[in-house]
């Protein structure tokens, strides 16, 4: 079977909306419900965060949500349990995103095998450098049909981006600014120049912009340059304050997808 990420981007070249939220949040067993509601509401891709005690690249919103999820009792083992029947209800691409340590502790090979078993399409591990990935883990990922989505920043040299473009990564995660998640919102002129530079590279790999995308204005702006954009902190804020989950999810996706 083709990887769902590849299939999606083959069919949909623009305005791909990807939503991130941490597993086990706001309540321990909300993971699958949120996923289902996101697909229903019209999200194109979902990234489920694997909560970690020390999320270095995350700002306050996601850090607090991760803490809450861990207090709720989430673990990687339990997450795979929660996602066991996921493919009965969800057909959009689903990725897991997290820090290396919990995955390493779980066993990287076992992790990949379990990802495949529940129907995960890709993985984002920001603190696993591409060099280490290529040397030690690429074969295991490929064997289990998993994409390893790389991050690039305004400082990433063009040669490295072109090298990534030669490989099969599903998409390239374009970090909007040099900042932790949720630290900045809105898109500056400088960022637009950077996005334009990426666009001008005419990569064969689809790109999505993330970090600081928070509403329809920033989503639509990002989509002028890339196949889509990723929203994390703003979605977490939308679901963290109680209320009906399904309604919160639906409202949020509608709020972002407003046509300009």
């Amino acid at each position: 079977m083709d990887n769902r990420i590849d299939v999606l981007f083959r069919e949909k070249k623009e305005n791909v909306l990807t939503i991130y939220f941490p597993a086990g949040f706001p309540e321990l067993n909300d993971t699958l419900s949120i996923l289902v509601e996101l697909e229903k509401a019209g999200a194109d891709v979902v990234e489920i965060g694997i909560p970690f005690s020390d999320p270095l690249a995350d700002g306050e919103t996601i850090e607090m949500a991760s803490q809450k999820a861990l207090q709720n009792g989430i673990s990687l083992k339990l997450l795979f349990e929660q996602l066991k029947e996921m493919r009965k209800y969800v057909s959009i691409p689903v990725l897991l995103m997290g820090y290396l340590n919990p995955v390493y502790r779980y066993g990287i090979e076992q992790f990949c095998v379990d990802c495949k078993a529940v129907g995960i399409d890709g993985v984002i591990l920001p603190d696993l450098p591409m060099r280490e990935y290529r040397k030690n883990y690429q074969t295991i990922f490929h064997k289990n049909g998993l994409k390893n989505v790389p991050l690039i920043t305004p400082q990433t040299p063009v040669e490295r981006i072109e090298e990534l473009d030669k490989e099969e990564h599903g998409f390239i995660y374009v970090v909007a600014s040099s900042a932790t998640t949720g630290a900045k919102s809105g898109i500056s002129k400088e960022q637009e120049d950077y996005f334009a530079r990426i666009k001008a590279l005419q990569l064969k790999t689809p790109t999505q912009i993330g970090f600081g995308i928070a509403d329809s204005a920033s989503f639509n702006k990002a989509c002028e340059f890339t196949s889509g954009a990723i929203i994390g902190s703003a979605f977490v804020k939308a679901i963290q304050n109680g209320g009906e989950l399904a309604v919160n999810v639906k409202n949020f996706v509608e709020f972002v997808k407003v046509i300009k």
Partner: protein
Amino acid sequence: MDKHRSKYLANEDGYYGDFGGAFIPELLQHNIDELKANWEQIIESDSFQKEYVKLLKDYVGRPSPLYFSQRLSDKYNAQIYLKREDLNHTGSHKVNNTIGQVLIAKQLGKSRIIAETGAGQHGVATATICALMGLECVVYMGATDIARQAPNVARMKMLGAEVRAAESGNKTLKDATNEAIRDWINHPTDTFYVIGSVVGPHPYPDMVAQLQSVISKEIKEQMSQLPNYVVACVGGGSNAAGAFYHFLDNEEVELVAVEAAGMGVETAETAASIAQGNVGFIHGSKTLLMQDEDGQITEPYSISAGLDYPGIGPLHANLYTQKRATVMNATDEEALQAAFELTQLEGIIPALESAHALAALPKLALKPTDVVVVNLSGRGDKDMETYIAKMNS
């Protein structure tokens, strides 16, 4: 710098055996690449060497004495020397490293310095050099540590640094390090992160070890024979790295690293990262760290803020795995006893961290002919509150 490179030091990729590397998000890659490409060249340059050596001599007061402790020697029936890093300006070994890193930062054209600190010694040493060189300085410190190391907080402020509290986790060194790394991510061009120990992504562990290696270089010059033991406490492991560095290839010298056991290595209230740890990733380095079965980093505990860290530098993880170093530990209580013992026998009040190294003395099966060097990494002024509480208990 020495041309011969010990097999126990980092290889070109920053690995110590299976440990080390640079496991960092792409957001930091540019900074790390910049440092990696330049630091050795800067350190080896004549201008750096001239300034570094001069500051170590005239500003820090190096070489630090190697003091023969007659009364400890009598008590433990061996020949015990103390390497007096406590006599350095700012009161610990940390300044050897901060002078070097701030000079490197200046060479790289950085205008803003950030640091993490546990006991406050690294924060003070960083703030001091920033005052000297007229650079902006922000120090992250866990809220718990701010409370238990008040004198050092006041010193940093007087020195012109901004002290920012880390409020997550146990609010100690690990949490301060997380905040410093986040700050660095958010300031990708003008900021240099001065890491306080042999931890973090490559090239930090290698660079900090090299800057601290002056300790063992001097010990070698100050002794007419090789010691049988070199003993040092390990938090992240920088004073130990400095004390071991030039002895790494003298396999007959037993290197003893002493971890903080807190309430005991078998308890949950401990900071013994090697005794309790498993292989994993912390702050950009593959090493041994305290974690639960889900790979969440566990909160450490030690009476000593400088040792209250759940990981260990990759150099030490490898020295332990290769059996090149002996790893011991000391509880809060043993460290306190050792601190009072040194004070009463020699009139030297040690830092709580250094007291852990002293606490290993009764545990080494010493012979009268054994020559032991204990690295006295710092002085105890900052710990007076803890010592006063002990006296009143």
